[in-house]
């Protein structure tokens, strides 16, 4: 029997909700803060900013990362920028407009209250980052520069060349380093969380594997924050880093945290196309390129001429044609789907015919190659090293790739999961982006969660209960350690014939083909029968050499892939049950005559929060209805 989820959304007018809520929340007196101990897993934008800020407030903080250094987290790879409605460009931006754009961009599947709060605090993020010394791009007058991103008609994106994520993460990392130096944060590198520990129904710690010597370690605290990123690597090929994984959130899901909207996957339109079967990952070319690059394909299907030999009148600038007002800057889901459609209809280019052109010839003619170099030089260099082609002379070839997961652990307005005391931040939660995330909004959300939301809401939780000290000698830690050791032993003991990598690739292909950019009930049902078979085969036939008490990448990967099988099944189930198209979830059966996503607000205007019921068992669906009081849902139009 589905329970009603309490999202803890405050009442009153939307613009006052966060302020009112902050006032009504309980506070922890400054002297008492040091008595509380918070565990943070992950050091990306959300984790680092949360850990640093909580330590500044006086909490004792333990931070775990599977990296050797907090600075290696994958937020570092975000290129384009971060949104904030500062209206520095005087182009009519406001909190309301960012709120509106984000709710619309998310195809009306996000919580209005969360999105409004996000838009409200985003300005403070820019202030904070500038104060930390983040070298954002500047105008000649010394003031901050902005650029445009998809899904918006104003320039509100702050950037640091093509390395905005890097600079923001280094800012948060440096803030964290400052607190480590003050010994208010203890950082444990190369530790991978493998289980969540609950005592009396509340999150009180984690079990992690020391990745250098393989030992299992228990960490205890009064609250646990997961900021462990998204799960795009289910697809094997994605723009995620090699080690990005879902294990922390999946193990927490198995301990009782509901999983929200797992099927919402963002396929980024501008990635370097797949080259060979050996490819280990896909590389993103920043969306900012769509500011000046024009996307086109040959009008004639199967046209094999070199791009330079195709005259202007035989080119189809299809985004400009279909969406005259947004042009090349339509949201990501739209741009991706249209690229796929063009290639499916035989207009694809390059050797694989799974690519479209992103052409800078006009920008170079208009402003010169140097101008383009100054803005996008590092991206052109990266493209050159990977493909061996010079994009100043021939157009780039791009194709969509898995990039971001809007789904994640379900959290309430306070960012707390269905497990009391376990908070989830950044991409790891089901987030504020609805069914599709707009460009330059991920950095905004990660830092909003870490700098400006969790520091308040966690205090409310800690002040609302009493915490008996829970040492790592507690039986719950022993049980969790035993369960993790059991999984490792099973993986090592299978001694089969196929490598973890082979299983991962196989699962990835299965997911991309059946639960990728265009989904159908038929394909999803097929996946739902094939995934469990592959999973069973994995447990019988996988080979994991070496031992568990050593630095052993195969053991690490085996744990992660084992979880991907279960998560993949949930994604497919969610995609199958959602009989509508919305944002990143496109069901071919549900589209308008013009090929746009067709929502069913009557039946599906809710967050699907899934409760784990055992591996292979059908999970329990809980629904959080979505109410739209301020932005009235309509067919999204970017014409």
């Amino acid at each position: 029997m589905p329970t009603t989820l309490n999202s803890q959304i405050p009442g009153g007018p939307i613009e006052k909700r966060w302020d009112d809520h902050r006032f009504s929340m309980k506070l922890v007196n400054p002297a008492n803060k040091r008595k509380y101990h918070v565990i943070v897993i992950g050091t990306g934008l959300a984790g680092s900013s949360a850990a640093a800020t909580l330590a500044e407030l006086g909490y004792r903080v333990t931070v775990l990362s599977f990296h050797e250094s907090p600075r290696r987290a994958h937020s570092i790879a975000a290129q384009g920028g971060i949104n904030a409605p500062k209206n520095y460009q005087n182009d009519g931006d406001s909190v309301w407009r960012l709120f509106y754009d984000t709710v619309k961009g998310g195809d009306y599947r996000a919580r209005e209250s969360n999105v409004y709060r996000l838009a409200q605090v985003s300005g403070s993020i820019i202030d904070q980052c500038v104060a930390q010394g983040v070298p954002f791009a500047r105008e000649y007058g010394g003031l901050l520069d902005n650029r445009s991103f998809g899904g918006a008609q104003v320039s509100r994106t702050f950037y640091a060349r093509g390395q905005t994520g890097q600079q923001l993460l280094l800012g948060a990392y440096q803030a964290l380093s400052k607190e480590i130096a003050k010994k208010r944060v203890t950082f444990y590198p190369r530790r991978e969380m493998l289980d969540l520990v609950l005592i009396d129904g509340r999150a009180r710690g984690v079990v992690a594997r020391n990745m250098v010597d393989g030992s299992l370690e228990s960490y205890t605290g009064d609250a646990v924050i997961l900021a462990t990123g998204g799960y795009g690597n289910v697809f094997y090929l994605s723009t995620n880093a090699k080690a990005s994984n879902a294990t922390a959130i999946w193990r927490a899901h198995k301990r009782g945290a509901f999983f929200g909207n797992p099927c919402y996957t963002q396929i980024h339109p501008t990635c370097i196309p797949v080259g060979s079967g050996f490819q280990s990952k896909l590389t993103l070319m920043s969306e900012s390129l769509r500011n000046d690059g024009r996307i086109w394909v040959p009008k004639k299907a199967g046209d094999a001429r070199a791009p330079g030999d195709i005259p202007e009148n035989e080119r189809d600038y299809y985004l400009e044609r279909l969406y005259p007002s947004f042009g090349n800057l339509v949201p990501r889901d739209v741009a991706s789907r249209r690229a796929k459609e063009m290639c499916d209809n035989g207009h694809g280019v390059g050797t694989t015919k799974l690519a479209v052109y992103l052409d800078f010839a006009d920008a170079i003619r208009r402003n010169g190659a140097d101008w383009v170099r100054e803005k996008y030089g590092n991206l052109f260099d990266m493209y050159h090293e990977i493909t061996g082609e010079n994009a100043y002379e021939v157009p780039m070839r791009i194709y969509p790739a898995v990039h971001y997961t809007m789904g994640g652990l379900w959290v309430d307005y306070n960012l707390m999961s269905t497990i009391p005391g376990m908070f989830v931040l950044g991409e790891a939660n089901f987030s504020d982006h609805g069914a599709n995330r707009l460009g330059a909004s991920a950095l905004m959300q990660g830092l909003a969660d870490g700098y400006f939301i969790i520091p308040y809401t966690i205090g409310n939780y800690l002040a609302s209960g009493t915490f008996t000290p829970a040492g790592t000698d507690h039986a719950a830690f022993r049980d969790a350690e035993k369960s993790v050791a059991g999984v490792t032993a099973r993986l090592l003991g299978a001694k089969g014939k196929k490598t973890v990598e082979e299983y991962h690739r196989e699962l990835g292909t299965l997911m991309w083909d059946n639960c990728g950019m265009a989904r159908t009930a038929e394909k999803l049902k097929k996946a739902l029968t094939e995934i469990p078979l592959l999973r069973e085969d994995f447990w019988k036939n996988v080979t994991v050499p070496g031992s568990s008490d050593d630095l052993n990448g195969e053991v690490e990967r085996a744990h992660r892939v084992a979880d991907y099988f279960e998560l993949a099944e949930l994604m497919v189930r969610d995609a199958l049950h959602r009989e509508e198209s919305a944002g990143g979830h496109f069901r071919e059966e549900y589209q308008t005559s013009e090929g746009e996503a067709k929502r069913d607000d009557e039946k599906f205007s809710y967050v699907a929060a899934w409760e784990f019921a055992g591996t292979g068992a059908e999970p329990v669906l809980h629904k959080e209805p979505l109410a739209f009081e301020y932005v009235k849902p309509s067919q999204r139009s970017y014409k």
Partner: protein
Amino acid sequence: MNFTLKIWRQPGRTSAGTFKQYTIDGVAADMSFLEMLDGVNQKLVRGGEDAIAFDSDCREGICGSCGLFINGRAHGPARGVATCELRMRHFTDGEAITVEPWRAKAFPVIKDLVVDRTGFDRIIQAGGYVSVNTGGVPDANAIPVPKHSAEEAMDAAACIGCGACVAACKNGSASLFVAAKISHLALLPQGQAERKDRVTKMVAAMDEEGFGGCSNTYACEAECPKLIPVTTIARMNREFLLAKK
């Protein structure tokens, strides 16, 4: 293409290491160096052998995790790229390739090609930040920053902390890494309050970690995947001297 690889294998921090030889064929020119190593590892794993341990994550040259000494060069023969961006087209078919971990007293080997670079974190902890807490900061546009200062700061801030500078330097010096952070923060108005303290503490931390000094050979600049210039080191020295006043 096919290659003969001589790769450093070392079971643990304190154990002795040795080179082992591997062969791989069917390598495509567009493959990355690490994808080629993935191929070697797949072969090893299928044979029930321990895979070669190496750090790598983003595979697009920004996280700074990867770092291999390939045929006598940090991040291999190509200029301005990290190991993960290096493509096999930079090698000739049949070539013998020697792969070693970063070698420095301050970067002890953990296993095979994985080294411990946490010394870099400790240097940043010594002062590589602006001491502002969250909240209570002025509006982002309150203090204008000249465009050229912001650009120069960004040139330095582009450092990915991979350690190639240390690996390439005959002295195992971390000067370029430390200078990049000092330059980044010295060039911006926000970094001024702690400017003197920062350079003094960071240089002391750098020495404490056991990195060598700078001999101005500029090998670091030549090998830096982000092409950070040695003028940052001149700036660090200048900041260091001015802090003594």
